[in-house]
């Protein structure tokens, strides 16, 4: 089955991941800009990072027949340094010209601070100004409810089109409000501590597959890109059809990301062979 990994931090992963993903049916990944595990000091470091994910990483993925797309942003953790953040944001729009840059992400909240909010709002403004898609990070653990609500408040006060915004890392206690307000939501699957593949399938069964993206955890911390395939296996083992799986794990990313013409992978439909 063909799979799209819509949230994949390739720079933190080895080529072996690409090889195994290719062998398991992954045809494309999308890499949001994120925290590198330490706070960067110089705007140039971000710009080189944006070059890495928009110029170099597609060539590494292509070795395995995988399309690589990316997003650019100052992540919420480093938004705590507004001076640095604004310097980066001044030059960030240049990267929207790149053929594989899909939009602004991941921005949003980590600890839901004033500085984070200021930089988040600035990046929403940039996305609107340059007609870019938005990918929004929500906090992972005890601050998730507060951070998600604040995200929705910020977006409500700006003239965003909810269908062009993906609010990521939702779980059972934060999925309803963004969906009800017309946003896309994402589940991020971890081997331990956060949303699990089985719980993701539970939410798919409960909320359907409209405007829901499923992505694995794939970063420099404890994470596993194949949690996505675990979810697909669990989904199929519960009796859902191949086409239903394709709708969620391939076609939904096509529909959201395909709002920018740079993402040109089309939804697919399997046909029953005539007997």
């Amino acid at each position, binding site marked *: 089955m063909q799979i799209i990994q819509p949230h994949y931090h390739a720079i933190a992963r080895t080529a072996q991941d690409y090889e195994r993903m290719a062998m398991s049916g992954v045809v494309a990944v999308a890499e949001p800009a994120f925290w590198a595990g330490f706070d960067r000091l110089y705007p140039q470091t971000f710009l080189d990072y944006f070059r890495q994910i928009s110029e170099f990483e597609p060539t590494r993925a292509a070795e395995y027949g995988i399309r690589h797309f990316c997003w650019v942003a100052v992540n919420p953790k480093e938004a705590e340094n507004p001076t640095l953040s604004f310097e980066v944001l001044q030059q960030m729009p240049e990267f929207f010209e790149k053929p594989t840059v899909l939009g602004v992400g991941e921005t949003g909240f980590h600890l839901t601070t004033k500085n984070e909010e200021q930089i988040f709002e600035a990046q929403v403004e940039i996305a609107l100004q340059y007609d870019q898609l938005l990918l929004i990070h929500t906090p992972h653990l005890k601050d998730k409810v507060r951070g998600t609500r604040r995200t929705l408040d910020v977006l409500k006060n700006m003239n965003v089109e909810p269908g062009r915004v993906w609010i990521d890392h939702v779980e*059972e206690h934060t999925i309803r409000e963004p969906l009800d307000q017309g946003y896309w939501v994402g589940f991020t699957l971890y081997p331990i*501590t*956060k949303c*699990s593949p*089985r719980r993701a399938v539970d939410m798919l*069964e409960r909320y359907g597959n409209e405007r829901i993206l499923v992505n694995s955890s794939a970063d420099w911390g404890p994470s596993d890109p194949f949690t996505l395939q675990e979810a697909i296996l669990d989904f199929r083992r519960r009796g859902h059809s191949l086409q239903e799986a394709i709708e969620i794990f391939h076609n939904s990313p096509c529909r959201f990301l395909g709002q920018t013409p740079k993402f040109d992978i089309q939804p697919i439909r399997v046909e029953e062979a005539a007997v």
Partner: protein
Amino acid sequence: MLKPREVLDQYYLDTRCQLLEIAATLDRYDFAGQGDNAPASDQRLEQIYRSLDLLSRRDTATDRSERLLNLYSDPA
């Protein structure tokens, strides 16, 4: 051996995750049983709830794992 606080430092998030998996499994069971699919009584479900009762008691000896395993064992 770890100090009490260090046990939580090291295992709190794992335990939170495991509890969520239990909650999700029970939700899945109840969700599946809605409508015309009302489940017949099942001894395994009773065992799970008895386990949760046991785990919810704080003033107990440090043999919870052993007692849970006995709960899931055939009589000797």
